[in-house]
């Protein structure tokens, strides 16, 4: 890992490195096993189409985790205090999902040196799948 990100290293408007991931059905099977979420809509094509879905689709929590990975890669694992998302669209196998994380504000409070971040996950057409926000506490050199 690169050196830990400090409060003084960032300013409003800064963006975290983009991470991209092309979703596969195998990802969904792996994630079902890893998370314990066995809703058949996410791995059983027959059940999903019978329920009126065009195919299996990604777990919302998988999308939240993908975006969370980019978040922890940027601010450091263990530094995220609050992370909330809205699942605006379903994700589909074959889609390339890319993260966008922007620093929206910095503040110093009793809780420490806090940064707020706007987080989105979108496909290659720019269709937003997940929109969220996070707050992290960063170490300070001060």
């Amino acid at each position: 890992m690169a050196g830990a990100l400090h409060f003084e290293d960032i300013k409003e408007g800064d963006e975290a490195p983009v991470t991209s991931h092309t979703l596969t059905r195998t990802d969904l099977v792996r994630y079902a096993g890893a998370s314990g979420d066995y809703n058949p809509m996410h791995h059983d094509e027959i059940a999903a189409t019978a329920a009126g879905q065009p195919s299996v689709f990604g777990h919302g929590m998988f999308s939240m985790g993908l975006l969370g990975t980019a978040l922890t890669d940027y601010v450091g694992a263990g530094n995220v205090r609050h992370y909330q998302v809205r699942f605006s669209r379903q994700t589909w196998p074959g889609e390339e999902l890319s993260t966008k994380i922007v620093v929206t504000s910095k503040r110093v409070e009793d809780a420490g040196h806090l940064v707020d971040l706007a987080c989105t996950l979108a496909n290659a057409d720019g269709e937003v799948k997940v929109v969220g926000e996070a707050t992290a506490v960063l170490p300070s050199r001060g």
Partner: protein
Amino acid sequence: MSAAEPATEVDDEKFLARLKAFEGRTVGAPTEGPDAVNQAMIRHWVEAMGDENPVYVDEQAARANGFPGIIAPPTMLQAWIMRGYKATAELAEARAEGRRAVGASPADDLMHVLDEGGFTSVVATNCEQEYRRSVVLGDRLSVSSSIESVSTEKQTGLGIGHFITTVLAFTDAAGEPVATMRFRILKFRPGTGKSTAALSGPPTAGSEEPRPLRPRPALTHDNAFFFDGARQQKLLVQRCASCGILRHPPRPACAVCRSFEWDTLEASGRGTVYSYVVVHHPQVAAFDYPLPVAVVELEEGTRLVADLVGIEPDAVEIGMPVVVTFVAVDDELTLPMFGPAPA
């Protein structure tokens, strides 16, 4: 009640009362997850996610980053208390047979009531997590869950349904709080969606219909400059060439001095939310919902109506500083929209 029989209003009220009875219900004692936090499950999870952070798999790297040992990814939280495949399968079997599964929770019972009401499909809509400390190898997490709210019937893009919000409080073996999670789902009637927009379908689906375009502005001699400006990433405001008053939306004459002479001013794009609404209904397929729309007061002094982007509808506040961003909504149309201004 089945989806085929139209419900009467009395039925609807009874059904809603059944749903509302679940609000505030909790599962008695905290329930312990099936296994301690362990390396094998963490490895499965980070591999599924493509997360290569070494603090989740390498003791030395974790210590070098200030942790007491290997930690679990924060968003993996829920995995430690999921009941697993066997219990999930038993629950599905019981539901199919119309009986209550052994160990069914109030949340399971609520799902059953909704299934009976024809709201058989489910999709996650929101998740919020707050972390008190990192979860470490060996942690035994327990969860207390409660049903925070059950909405009235809502028309959504996916269909008619009810939003269910559940709160999960995670504690460790000592009973100390570790994290909380608020999770909202939509249980909806399949096939009752008003819009195809929310369900765009996979890129490979042959039956996929292209998303309809946004309505076109009616271009006139007076307003064409505004949309031309937006295409060039400029926010242009009409200004009376006689008295200098700004006006929007564009129109032929000055309301103050009645002059027909006008030019344009390039606005800074900075402003504040003067007023706003969040549109839920009616839904038009070309738009995403809920859709926050604001009256923005520009720092130059006039106001305009625009979509808000990059902000949760709940977070919009009157008076908040916003800044313009130009969104190419399709190949032909670029519109100024506003997002939260960096402080």
